[in-house]
């Protein structure tokens, strides 16, 4: 079977074709879709799972939190100076730092995960962009290709 390309101007036509193709038993791996904007319906049709990006966020967030807390405690203990009669390890302020670093590292890890998972930046496309403009495109790859 040869690779087939379908182009649509409108979302509805595109979605019905996609539905048709899926019903005809074409697997998700054979489909390559290009969209001018994010269509949540496509994901519903393809029954996509949440995916591993969440774990990037979780890992980043957790490491940020623990790292932040650790940094505060370590630095406070490495030179235990009394300020204002407060304890050397003052948890409330340290939690603020930990929280902020959780957000920061979580966001950055998510972004990194995104780049990894979405395979960006794409070098080929940087030099010679392939773009389908405002069309909805379905590419059905031939088997064995």
């Amino acid at each position, binding site marked *: 079977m040869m690779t087939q390309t379908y182009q649509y101007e409108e979302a509805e036509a595109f979605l019905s074709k996609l539905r048709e193709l899926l019903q005809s038993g074409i697997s998700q791996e054979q489909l390559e879709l290009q969209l001018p904007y994010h269509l949540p319906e496509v994901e519903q049709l393809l029954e996509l799972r949440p995916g591993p990006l969440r774990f990037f966020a979780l890992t980043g967030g957790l490491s940020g939190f623990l790292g932040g807390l650790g940094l505060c405690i370590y630095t406070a203990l490495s*030179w235990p*100076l*009394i*300020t*204002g*009669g*407060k*304890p050397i390890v003052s948890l409330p302020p340290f939690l603020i730092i930990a929280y902020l670093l959780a957000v920061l590292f979580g966001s950055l890890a998510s972004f990194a995960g995104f780049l990894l998972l979405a395979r960006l930046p794409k070098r080929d496309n940087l030099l010679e962009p392939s773009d389908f403009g405002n069309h909805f495109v379905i590419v059905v790859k031939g088997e064995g290709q």
Partner: protein
Amino acid sequence: MERREFLQLLGIFSGAAILPGCGDDRSASKLVSYLVPPDEGVLPGEARYLPSTCCECPAGCGLTVRVREDRAVKLEGRPGHPVNDGGLCMRGQAALWRLYHPERLRHPLRRDADGQFQPVSWDEALTLVVEGLRQARQQGRANLLLSGRTTGTLAELQQHFCQQLEVEQLPQFEPFSHAALRQAYGILFAQPEVPHYRIDQSDLLLSLGADLFETFVSPVNYARQLSRAIKQDDFQWIHAEPHYSLTGANAGERLILLPGSEAALLCFLLVRLDAADERNRLPMQLMAALPASSLEETARLTGLPKRRLEQLAKQLRLAERPLLIVGGIATSQPQGLQVALLAGLLQQRLGMVGNRVDFSQAEAYASVGSLHDLERLTERLEQDQVGVLLVSATDPLVQAPAALDLKQKFQRAGLRVGLCDLFNESAQQFDLLLPLSHPLESWGDAVPRRGVFSLLKPAIAPLYDSRSAGEILLEILQRVGQQVQNQSYQEYLFNTWQQRFDQQQLQQFSEQGFLSLPVSAVPHQFRPEAVSSQLATTQAATATAPHLILTPSIRSFDGRSSCLPLLSELPDPLSTVSYGRWLSMAPTAARKLQLRDRDLVRISSGDWSAELPVRLQPGLAATVLMVQGDLLSEAPLPTDARSGELIRRLDGVRLTKLGGAVALAILSGSSSQQGRGLIPDPVHTQEQPLEQTRFYRAHPHKDYRWAMAIDLELCIGCGACAAACYVENNVPVVGQQDHLQGREMSWLRLAPFYDDAGRASFIPMLCQHCHNAPCEPVCPVYAAYHNAEGLNVQVYQRCVGTRYCSNNCPYKVRRFNWWQHQRQAPLEQMLNPDLSVRDRGVMEKCTFCVQRIRQARDRAQDEQRPIRDGEVLTACGQSCPTGAIVFGNLLDESSAVYRLAHSHRAYRVFADLGTEPSIYYLRKG
């Protein structure tokens, strides 16, 4: 004097031998550092403490000069000195600025034909003087010597000089001559002197106008005595004055008199007290000469309630050891002489003379003249009778009353020779300027009062090609062959001392820097007959309001110290104005004219007028306006024809509101403490503050926990502590512009707070070194933290200058370096090398003189012992004339600070904030 003897004496006045100032090694420079340090002399990093005497005002306080690497860096009151016993006022602290003043004369100057000053050598300069003296003698003109108050050997040398060279010595010139007082005592007791008042031996002090804490004769001495007296339970102090002085603010009770009614009050008291007791009555004839002073009349004249007058008479009568002191404004008025006479009578009547009014130890004012002498001088100048006029260490051109017009007439002297230290405006009126060495660069002695000898010994080599007055006079004498050739003034002094003191006394004199010799009691004779005629004129005349009173200034004395930058930087204690001049007026009077602080007014009297900004002075009588005399030297003040005292009051002045305001550096944000209990009311806060509950555990202190106790009962708000702090801690003097913007750098400030009745209380505010310091946790870089000895430490090198610590300090005692503060050369030489000079952009504050703690610790460590109580003296505590500031270790239960901190009077400012300051204030009462 034999060379052997001289060397012997030199040995006694130890340190003299290696002083570079003595020999001819002024140009010597050190090329090689010490490998073997000398026994005595400059040790890098080691301070030497040398005795000297303060010459900033005539009081003659003893000094300890701290010398580091051949530079004097700090002056301290000399403990045990009979005048000041360790205390030193702000002027004394600032005296170092005179030594390192950028305007100091550096070599003799001579005015050439074009009126320009050209440097000349000493040889030429002195030849000119000798030549001038000779010419004037030939022309039949009189050669005159006018000096400020001079005592001791120099006074004798002056006399000798004048005799030998046929120079007429004019009576010494002092703006605060106490002439009326001396004249009165002369009439009454044949003692034309200012007696030594023994306040600490009295149980009731009634002071009338005398500004005991500001300028009156010996302020530090009186403050010391009063602090001793106040510690006695039964001591009462009533101060009566028409204006508002720092002394009045500190008296137990301040009676506000109508201006010019002092004589009436004294008359009333005299009549009452004389009638009360049969014994020891004054002669009838004398009493008859007194004007009738009924209770009603006196109440009307003085403005005091009748009951108070009666009570005052009763208090005086019941007191066992009463003391009356009059002076200052009370004797600088048309009736000044009567006031002094009546006071003398009262002193006699109540048995004070001979004990608490002590003529045997009279303050050495006998050779001081009065304004009459200056008047005579101007007359002679006008008649071109004056040849050479030598003016030594006094500034009559600025300080003589404007009415004399001395400056103009001065030009008519044949040769005007000035022995002065600064090249200021009045110096430029001379033909020949002979630069005087600073007292810290010179040998000498002073006799501030009979029997007290105070040593002047060079602490540093002269900075410039200058000489002391003694050296100059001696050298002139030698030039005309009237004195042993090649005898230095130092030898001359040693000679004199050797004749006066025995060996043991000499030893003592050299070691302590002072000597108290027993004085024989002066028999005083009471001569009431001479008084009657003088008193006949004691008619109470009601002067017309409003009255302008020109007060003495604690900062500039009579104006002589106003050239010292530190003294403009420190605020006036009552008004908290630092730079500029101002007119103090009562808030009620100001409200009538709709005047507020800084509003410009014109004050005029006759043809004369001046424009001044207003400063509201709570507690001031509504009819009285007050300006510090030296700030308004152009005022047309008359001279009292009888006493020759300046009349420091203008009656019936006109006050016009000009509209608009001028910038005036008022440092206080509020004259009221707004009921915030910084200084708690002794009546309402008897309960102890509740025990603080802590959220966090208190952090431990190992051996020391430094703390301070400040007794507000003793604090008189004189500002000596603040001045000492400036010098000790290299606090920059920033100038008027920064003061106008609220950027003064003082680590320690004295806040006067007035209650509704206008009574002032003072509280020294400095870093409280809080146990839970709010400034510390907000610093992002640990520049502020708490050390193990309870100090709140500021690390300058670490500070990035966020100023958050200052914002978060409830006491607002942190100071930020808004600029890279510059010190005009050679002022940088007085920097204390023990601590750093802070850079631009850095926060600084009181350190509890951590450098002194460190020194004490080093010393204790060397001797393997803990630091003793009282071993660490902070600069502020050291200087305090009343000993109100005590510093020490709070962990040591035997320490003075521990005892005071646990006194029932102890409290901490803003205790409810939970900052737990290390400074304990002791409330009054």
